């Protein structure tokens, strides 16, 4: 009974995901290209010493790009925020302080974008 329910749920979500991927195929392609390029530039320390293209910046750019390219909405941002905060707890418990701090930064970045999106969505609906 539960097994068949889970199987149905998986199939349904899988179909949704497929549909979403088809809808955002171009966006996904560009998104991945940009992210790969940014990571390469980071590895090569490309803009140093004028600008440090760190992982924080890449993550933040990724969040912003996900809005037009992947159609991300405020709820997605808050989910990302929660996931990173849960991960930060895990790291904190393991006393990996630096990584916990960095993960909390991602939580804040997602929250910031989430609040901006939420505001935009609410105002758009209102207007």
């Amino acid at each position, binding site marked *: 009974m539960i097994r068949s329910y889970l199987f149905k749920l998986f199939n349904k979500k899988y179909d949704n995901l497929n549909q979403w991927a088809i809808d955002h195929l171009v966006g996904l392609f560009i998104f991945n290209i940009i992210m790969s390029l940014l990571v390469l530039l980071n590895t090569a320390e490309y803009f140093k010493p004028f600008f440090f293209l760190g992982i924080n910046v890449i993550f933040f750019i990724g969040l912003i790009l996900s809005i037009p390219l992947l159609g991300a909405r*405020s709820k997605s941002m808050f989910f990302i925020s*929660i996931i990173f*905060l849960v991960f930060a707890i895990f790291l*904190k418990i393991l006393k990996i302080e630096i990584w916990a*701090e960095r993960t909390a*930064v991602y939580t*804040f970045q997602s*929250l910031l974008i989430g609040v901006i999106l*939420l*505001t935009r969505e609410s105002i758009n609906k209102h207007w």
Partner: protein
Amino acid sequence: MKIINKIWNNWHTVILVALCLVPIIWFIGRGDVLITGLDTNFPLDPLVWFQRRFYVWNGINNAGIDFSSSVAGVFFHFVQLAPYLLGLSLKNVEIVSLVFWFSAIVSSSYLLAKTILPKNKTPQLIVVILYILNIYLFNTWENVKVSNLALVTALPLIISIVYNWFSEKINSKKAMIYLCLGSILASGAGINPAYFLVIILALIIETVVYLFLNLSTKTEIKKILVKGLTSFFILILVNIFWIFPLLNFLYSTNTISLVDIGLTNWITSLSQNTSIINVIRLQGAWDWYALDSSGIPQYLSYTLNYLYKFPFIIFSFAVPILVLFSFVFFDKEQKFWYIFFGILTVLGIFFGVGSHPPTGSFFIFLFEHVPFLSFFRSPWYIFTPLLTLSYAALVGLLTYSFFQKYKEGMIKHIFNFLIIIFLIAYGLYNYPLITGKIFRPESKNSFYVYFPEYVWDTKDWLSNKHDSTDERIISYPDDQLESFNWGYQGTESILSLYSNREIITPSFNMTSKVFSEMLGSFYAHIKRGEYKSAISLMEFFGANEIFYKKDSSTLSSPIGDKINDLVETTKFGEWYFMRPKDEMNKKIFIAEAVYKNLSNPEDFIPVIPFLKPKSVVVNNKDTEIGQIKSNERFFSIIKTGILDQDKSILTNVNKYGLDILRNGTFNILIERNYLDRNSLIVKIDSNVISNSLIQYDQSLISVGPVKLFSGTHTIEIVYPVQENLLAISDFENISKNQNLRKEEFPENIQKTLLVYNESKEAQKIILPVNEFNPYLRYAVGFDYKYVYGKVPFVEVLQSAPTSPVKNHSIYPGSSTDWQTRYDIFRPVETNSKLELLIKAGPNEFSGRSKSFIENIFIKRIYDNNVYLVESNSDTSFKYLSKGELKYKKINSVKYEVELKSDGDNQLGSVIAFLDNYNKGWVLKSSDSKIENKFSHFTINGYANGWYVPAGMNTGKFIIYYRPQTLYIFAVLVSVCTIMLLIIYSLHKKKS
């Protein structure tokens, strides 16, 4: 039964009332104590403190300071004053005051909760509990911070009123009168205006968000804008009584940053631990992370739990997680609150992080480029209330949306059960705030203080002394943090907690450098036992009593019995009040001599003991002085410059050069620094001065008077030859026992010290020092040759009987040829001994180390400063009218002065007023209605002086602090605003 039913039906009210009474728990089982100390400053006489809030000049501490923003504390101190006047004991006064503020926060957060979530009581209660019990408030309550409490109280109240007004749930009349009340509660935030600006920021965000979400018609937009602006103006106008004087102060002193008003900018140190992960868990207070080398908290023992214990670490994330979930379960009907609190959360985190990476660089950019932003020097403390309010509201919204979804059935009961579990856990998590552990009850720095009986005896004595309000007390010892061995610690003098007597005391925030150095010089004289010189400095402070606290925890030397020849002492327990037997200057007097300082502003301080009684020192560069006709007659003070700066510091012959502008009679003054009588040879322009002209005073050696012509002169002083103070000169006993072959020892084992170590442990050689005097400077040096292994360290160790005081290391280097090294050692001025330690470090892998040291010396150096002070051999010579001055202190901003010149109508007078110089102080004649513009200048490097020209120096005058008039005007505006609002709200329209 009915009562039980009533309580059962109003369970949430019962909980709210119980929450209001949390401060009572803090006192249970603690005895007759008060919660005070450090920044808390609970007044031991609330009336005295309340009265001070009506003047924009506070003359109590260190010759006074502009008090413009502190008048904002008037309501806060009224809350203490009211129960005090009703006759309650100080302990009960404190309990009433704390319960009042706790209740105010509970009430205002409950009002907001009712506004956001009108239908369900459980979410309302969650909002209140999360807002009144959180880690941020630990620090607020620990120090009973007026600004924080005002902000935390007013913020939810004002947000709630403005929202209800916008959404027309209350009419304009009610909104305005409620806003008036909220503004009064917010007034305390003006003590640190940055806190007040947070309320303004929240108000602006609320208006903008509401406007964007409700853009429909032009009329609607106009309505919201008018309401938003009216709220803003009510907030400003009710608080104009402190805003206006503060702006006037900032404008008149050209202040745009903290440095301009002598405050320390500590943003970097405060932001060291405000990482995002700490800020989102509200754990950004700096004192949480002050740990010793073994990781034990230095101040707050309870932080051990929060930093290291698993349940506390896990639970610290509970509220932030719930906040994020609240956004996921977004309720469209509450979109205003989600967006508003979402913005506050983001801003609260961003600003709370301060200069900490990764957002710190942007914050610093704003900090450096936006005027007045430097006043937000402790951003975590200032902005976190935005975060705590958002957290409370968003968690409330989350529970509310669940209750809306599951109104019936099993899930609702499970949810209720989970809420109870969460709230219990939350209460346990915040146990230091509930139990009073925030006041460090077990620590030696506890805020629970029991005051000894003699503290109260002193209070009575000070208040019973007649005509003593204008007398100043100078406190000793000189620790900036006043610390008593019975527990109290304070940043200001304890006397200021209950007395109006003016006090000179060390402080972290001195506004005048000269004042600070003069005070340092007074303490140096006391410590050296140069009591006569110390008392002569007291005249320059207008002080006539020394407050000696024998119960202080200090490293400073005790005052010796010899002072009893010069003072009369009144004793209360461990406190001594020493009054010089000779009559002293008061804070307002006619100068009988004026000296013109031709060097740096602080350079006259060492010669004060030599100056004539009732004299003042002015700065030659002061343009106001240049305008006084008789200024050419003022005597000069010149600090000489040392010649041949490059010569060895160990010489006993120093040459000083100086330029004299006019012919005259001078005294050469040499800092004595414990030089024996008749030990000096003094030459002026190569002519030896007779010993009969050299007089040895306590702190100065006076040579002269001598007549000198204008031009360049050279003074040569031959000091006694310095002796080596090292107690050992033969090192054979130290060196001979080493496990070396004969030829590996130094050639001369008596002269050369062998520093040899073959073990894995560090070895040290201790060389004692004879006749060490902590009030002198020393040169420590040696010849050194490195052979092999680890390089040793030479350490100069100064230690008091109980602990080391100062450690100065000299690294000799690794030269294999002989090399000479020396350094200057400036001891801490306290009774102590000195040793020279030579430390050979531990060896690794069975290694060995070896070095040679010889000609070790420790000798005093002669860095005595030399001054020239002009005098006049003709005693009948006059350049000032002296006469008589009487004055009466009306209050801290007004003095009535009666001046009677000595009858010489050709000469003017200089009036000295020893409060800190400020352009706002004016001297005006009370006989004429026209304000006379007397030359106003700085005297003694910090105080006010006026030149009253000939012919005008008889009559009645007033010394007045002009910004007080602006303050009175501003108070009238505030009062009128409140009255108008009351009248408007009571007014009924005729139908």
